[in-house]
């Protein structure tokens, strides 16, 4: 199921929820384990988890006692792929610019500024 990028972004807009996802990227965890690094009550963490679950970003296990949380990569992938594509665009442009700046430097040395004094000392 894909709830759409809007829901994904709104779920991602909170730093605690992003931290929870970053933690889950390393492996599944229970609510207790997730609550540990944050000075936050269990109900507060559960609330964040519900938002993430609704956005399809995490799934909860069936085990009624532990209900471990698992990262669902589908919606995140869409966002990350977009960011990745945009980054690729700029990396490609910057790679070309790197080479092109060398060309510009050569053009500049061939055509010194009009203001430059003619009798400039040569080192």
């Amino acid at each position, binding site marked *: 199921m894909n709830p759409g990028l809007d829901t994904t972004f709104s779920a991602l807009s909170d730093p605690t929820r*992003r931290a929870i996802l970053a933690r889950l990227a390393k492996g599944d965890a229970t609510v207790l384990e997730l609550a540990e690094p944050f000075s936050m009550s269990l109900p507060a963490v559960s609330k964040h988890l519900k938002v993430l679950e609704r956005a399809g970003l995490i799934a909860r296990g069936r085990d009624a006692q532990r209900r471990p949380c698992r990262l669902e990569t589908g919606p995140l*992938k869409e966002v990350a792929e977009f960011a990745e594509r945009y980054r690729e665009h700029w990396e490609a*442009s910057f790679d070309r610019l790197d080479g092109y700046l060398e060309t510009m430097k050569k053009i500049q040395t061939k055509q010194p500024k009009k203001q430059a004094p003619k009798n400039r000392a040569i080192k």
Partner: protein
Amino acid sequence: MSKNDTAEREIIITRIFNAPRDLVFQAFTDPKHVDHWYGPRGFSTKTSDMDVRPGGKWNFVMRHEQYGVFKNRIVYREVKRPSRLEYTHDSGVDGDPSAFEVTVTFEEMSGKTKVTMHSVFPSAAELERVKGFGAVEGGKQTLERLAEWLAELE
């Protein structure tokens, strides 16, 4: 919401170029030069006009053999030669809901230049649109890189 409420819509890209700042700034702002390097892999950029000053515009098309032609417009909001550009990037249609805001800074680093591109996308709708654009199949994302990316958002 805090000022971080755009964090999930921001992309920051940095690169250090082995060239003086004036030259790098010129490469970004001179129509003679910009078409030589700007654009995603596989695309060629053709500038029709470029006027780099507050309120001025840069109109260009990006062409790809397979994906076709994409119209682009940049409207400059702030121009501080040679250290800063702020602009809105859209498809050339007024009131384009998919416009995004970009700030480019040029920092001098003893003969080299550090360029930072900071882009803020307005809404998920824009992402949906840009997804079609370029249409490169991604999907190489590993969980680790995902974690890195999330950490970057902090």
